[in-house]
């Protein structure tokens, strides 16, 4: 009995420790692995994509900054171009249940169809664990990983932070630039930028 009380007390103390906070990833280092279920119910990992370029796109279909990229067709065009070159494109949704941008797998399939998107897969991260692991802050927030698993770009989708689609034609698309440079054997000229957009609606 006493032993039980004692270990119960220990357990309470142990639980009182807050969980360790997020650890951001760093360009030039190996991107951390993750396992997430996609909207087809399939488990997807980063390790499983070794040998391919991987793009991680944090997304929220109701965010005006995401609309800016999709309503203009920019994001879909880039997805189509890059996936045809063998790039694996994961769109990741880290919105928590009950918050903006949280949709079921079935709803997501409709969204992908409606917005005519071409991701390799849409991954659901409702607990926000992978988002926090990567330090993803906004939608969109882009990460590019090379075939060795090294993060080669992190940050904004393009060079003009605004919600106005008219700015896209003036902007440099950093994801396209990073992939094209890396594929032609050049160093990535802009390896990290400050992402812009809506805050990711993480579970609070």
């Amino acid at each position, binding site marked *: 009995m006493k032993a039980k009380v004692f270990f119960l007390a220990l357990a309470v103390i142990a639980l009182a420790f807050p*969980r360790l906070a997020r650890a951001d990833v760093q360009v030039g280092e190996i991107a951390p692995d993750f396992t997430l279920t996609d909207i087809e119910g399939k488990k997807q990992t980063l390790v499983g994509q070794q040998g391919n370029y991987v793009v991680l796109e944090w997304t929220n279909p109701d965010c005006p900054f995401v609309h800016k990229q999709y309503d203009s067709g920019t994001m879909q065009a880039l997805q189509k171009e890059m996936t045809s070159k063998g790039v694996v494109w994961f769109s990741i949704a880290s919105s928590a249940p009950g918050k903006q941008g949280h949709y079921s797998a079935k709803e997501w399939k409709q969204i992908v169809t409606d917005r005519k998107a071409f991701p390799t897969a849409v991954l659901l991260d409702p607990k926000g664990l992978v988002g926090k692991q990567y330090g993803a802050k*906004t939608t969109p927030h882009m990460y590019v990983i090379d075939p060795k698993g090294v993060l080669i770009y992190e940050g904004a989708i393009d060079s003009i932070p605004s*919600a*106005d689609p008219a700015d896209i034609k003036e902007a440099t698309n950093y994801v396209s630039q990073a992939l094209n440079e890396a594929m032609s054997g050049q160093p990535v000229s802009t390896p990290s930028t400050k992402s812009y957009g809506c805050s990711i609606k993480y579970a609070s």
Partner: protein
Amino acid sequence: MKKTLLILCLVFFPCAAQAEPVRSAHTEAELVSEVTSIQPGTPFWAGLHLKMEPRWHTYWRNPGDSGLPTQIKWNLPEGFEAGALQWPQPEKVDLPPLAVYAYENEVLLPVQITPPASLTPGQDIELKAKATWLACEEVCIPGQAELSLHLPVKAEVPAPDPAKATVFAETRARFPLRESEWRAEAFTGKKQFVLRITSPNAYLLSGLSFFPYDEKLIDHAAPQTARKIESGYELILKRGNLFTGKLDALEGILVSKEGWRGAGSETSLEIKAPVTPRDFPESAGGAPMKLGAALVFAFLGGLILNLMPCVFPVLSIKILNFVEQASEQKIKPGLHGIAFTAGVLVSFWLLAGALIFFRAAGHEIGWGFQLQSPVFVGFLAVLFLILSLSLFGFFEIGLSLTGLGGFLTGKSGLGNSFFGGVLATVIATPCTAPFMGAALGFALTQPPAVSLAVFTLLGLGMAFPYLLLSFFPRLLAFVPRPGPWMSGLKKFMGVLLLATAAWLGWIFFLQSGAHVTTPGHGGKIAWETYSDERLASLRASGTPVFVDFTAAWCLTCKVNEKIALDQDRVKKKFEELKIVPLKADWTSRDERIARALAGYGRSSIPLYVLYGPGHSEPVLLPEIITADLVVQAVDKVFKAAVDEEKKPKEAL
């Protein structure tokens, strides 16, 4: 309605400025003017006034982790010039794990407009602008509006618009102070900035928070820890992981709850702090230790406190006490364990309370400070002398000095156990154990609630062995049974207590008597006295340095010196490699040494810092060292430095 007014206005001169508010994205936007007319050639203030619905916010010039700054594009008549938007102090809005800098409820972003001198009185001027902003509650909506403002031109000095006087005055009160006697400078490591602000006037500040102008500079959501230094403050900021380039200056505003020029003055200060690189041990201090890790280390540190030389006498006495209690059937050991734990915890809380209080009072103190007070030391020395005499059997404390010493030798009563815990804590504190330094450094820079949590875990760790023994009396079987040996043990304790008393007496002598310069240990390492300047000049020339942070009252330090630093091997190694030994003596309270410790993320000693040749990062040695450990650490640092030299120099 407004249109009609405008027409009436134009017809029946003179009348006030007219503008139409526009609603967009849960926000009402309007161009406003501080004055009711324009005088040719005289600059005046206008601005963009945004009124957000409850819970919605718009962004500062650096929006933080998400969001966009509000922007304005002017379309002004020929000859007019508009200055930049002026940004009053924003709020930091926490959206864990993110943070943004924003305005809630409403904000006026003033702009200075300079009209041309060629205007003729009687003209009507229309100022037009397109404003764009992002309004967010939980969700975000971009807002935009085409705005305009009509103002008549008059020859006389413009009269202020009474309807706008309040909002302009309130906004100006939230502008950062630009000219002041505050000086700012910053130091940068790989993962942190230390922002130091000093002023000849001792203004009291609190709740310091830095809002950088550059978006990539710092981790916006990371806690910013402030500490009081001589004639100012230091703020530790976590570097943003996106920021990689060279940085000349930290620019932004610093916010304090109290004004920067005394009570009621500006609460934000614009700074441009020149940045110099500095070696930081990246494990400690600025990239502040995570709360969870700090609590774990506090618990471990508390556990290890029991093994420290200065707490050893009490540990022994309490074990003796447990033996006695186990032999008496009526006493419940578990209750004693809890009472003892309570004693330890209450002491730690009192200590934490005192530390928090002193810190708030602006004192610069470190752990072990109570042993820096001669009165306290003298009192302890006398107490220990009396206790040791009692243990030698000169008199029975239980009879003659009940109130004072009863808790040590008394046979029962939960109060005794409680005070046993108190005494153990008081004696243990100066000997900060491994791990504890960092945990304390963390605690002292944190809000009171976090400090309390750390101290609580420290206390729990220290009381843990007693709690364990009392809940599992069977373990007492490993403790020898009472018998004649006990009187021998008592005498042995007496010797320990006497030695402790003598040691305390020596410290008392050092503290109160003529200041004895720290003995140079004849034939041992030739220590130089530490100073920031000396260290900096040695580092600048790439000379290897070993710094010993020590004090006469730090028994752990003394033991380390005896068994490690005073050994020939160490001395030879230092001489062979031309390592300059510096000794920082903290026997009397010295703010400069406290600050140097804080620079390494510590508030306690012992601390041993080793700088290798060249410009390598400093290495912190463990708090308990041996001669081998020091020699190995030195070899490792030198080898690393040599490897660094051999590396092909890449074009940088």
